[in-house]
């Protein structure tokens, strides 16, 4: 095989690994949107909080890495609930655009508060996982781990949503919110549950990201937009659509980045998104 082809293949496989991670990130956002009908614009900032949690617990307080990660998942889940109770709940009856904007305000707040609390330094977990060689190609073990954990997380979520009573209620509430009480379901409680789950998924994403990237207050901006766009392209609220879109986007980024340059990969992905919106405004699997 020619060298070019080998690297292209490596880029495609790396794109696949990235796709898994992006799919996990978009899953939480889609879950929230599907259930509560709001977009958490500050989703990536919750992830940032989770990354800081892992960093501080592990590096400053010397917790074992896995314990720090478990704690981060719980912390971000709690943040999700707080976000819902104090920010989303008061605007549930307001115009949809206000619901979008209010979480944008939270984005601003979290970013600034992180700068205030942690400074603008890039912080590194200091954990380096080896890279894995496969013939002439090499892959970072951190990515492979992230991919596997993301898939496991999504599988777990899938089983929960399809098998359990609460999971079924979560899917049902997006289809007809008004009659949920007739089923004995309290929508308010399902909202809290979904917010906690969405937060926990953000926390899990944080654990996987902090293995690969430095954390700093603005890190949310580097993968927040891509996460929304994946959700929109998949069809807001459609978890399966988001899953597909994540892998499509990841290929654009990875292969586009390989053929041209990293930013061009992103530019291609975003341009593709805009074109897709005109072709299928409701998203790949969306309904409107």
């Amino acid at each position: 095989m020619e060298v070019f082809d080998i690297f292209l293949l490596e880029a495609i496989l790396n794109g696949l690994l990235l796709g898994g991670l992006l799919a996990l990130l978009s899953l939480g956002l889609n879950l929230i949107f599907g259930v509560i009908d709001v977009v958490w614009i500050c989703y990536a900032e919750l992830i940032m909080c989770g990354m800081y949690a892992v960093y501080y617990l592990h590096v400053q307080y010397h917790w074992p890495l896995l314990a720090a990660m478990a704690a981060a998942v719980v912390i971000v889940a709690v943040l999700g609930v707080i976000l819902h109770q104090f920010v989303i709940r008061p605007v549930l009856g307001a115009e949809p655009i206000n619901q979008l904007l209010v979480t944008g305000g939270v984005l601003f707040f979290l970013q600034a508060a992180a700068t205030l609390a942690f400074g603008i330094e890039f912080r590194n977990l200091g954990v380096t996982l080896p890279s894995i060689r496969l013939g002439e190609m090499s892959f970072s073990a951190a990515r492979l781990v992230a991919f596997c954990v993301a898939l496991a997380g999504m599988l777990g979520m899938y089983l929960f949503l399809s098998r359990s009573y609460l999971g079924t209620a979560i899917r049902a509430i997006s289809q007809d919110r008004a009659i949920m009480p007739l089923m004995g379901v309290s929508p308010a409680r399902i909202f809290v549950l979904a917010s906690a789950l969405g937060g926990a998924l953000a926390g899990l994403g944080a654990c996987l990201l902090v293995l690969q990237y430095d954390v700093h207050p603005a890190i949310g901006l580097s993968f927040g937009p891509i996460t929304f766009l994946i959700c929109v392209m998949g069809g807001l609220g459609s978890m399966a659509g988001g899953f597909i879109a994540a892998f499509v986007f990841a290929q654009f980024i990875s292969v586009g980045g390989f053929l041209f340059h990293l930013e061009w990969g992103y530019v291609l992905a975003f341009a593709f998104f805009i074109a897709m919106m005109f072709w299928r405004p409701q998203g790949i699997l969306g309904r409107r």
Partner: protein
Amino acid sequence: MQMLSLTKVCAGYSGFQALFEVSVEVEAGEAVAVIGPNGAGKTTLLRVISKLIGATSGEIRMEGASLARVPAHEVVSRGIAHVPENRRLFPRLTVEENLRMGAFPRAARKRYGERLEFVYGLFPRLEERRGQPAGTLSGGEQQMCAIGRALMSGPKLLLLDEPSAGLAPVVVQAIFDLVRRICAQGYTVLIVEQNIRQVLKVVGRAYLLEAGRIRLAGNSREFLDSQEIRKTYLGL
């Protein structure tokens, strides 16, 4: 024994009163109809019983216990299952998942298997289509699924809101047969209908609701004989 009683219940929607001092009683084991023209407040009456909307005054009692402090999502655990107007299935959940939603209350989950069997026994068609999204069912099948979903909670009292609406005449017949069978099973039923002639054959008693007020109450024989009902609602 008294199953359900409403005493001088008033209710409405922000700034609009839809029910005026409505009193209704349903005995255990009985089937009772509420009839009346469009917009009379029949759906509102059922909504206020299952607490989807609050009563502004008056009292609602289920088996003697007031529902005043019971939150909406706990009404079903008191034994009241409401089949809403237009069926309101979850269209993208499968038939069986819709039925599972009916068994959401903790006490109902324990008896899920046995009730599922019972519902499938009552509606073999649903079992054939258990894995199909509910939105793809025919109108009659959807109504069966909606009733089945309500039965999954193991209710004592079944509230049915226009189960025959929008169905083909043959199917309407099937639905009324079904309601009769359900009554025969010992369920207490409060049914709202526009299809007055048919429903009066199924129930023992009825109320006439007009513009949010009870105008007439009596057994179905009296209703069928009433000049007013015959002229206005049966076109005789």
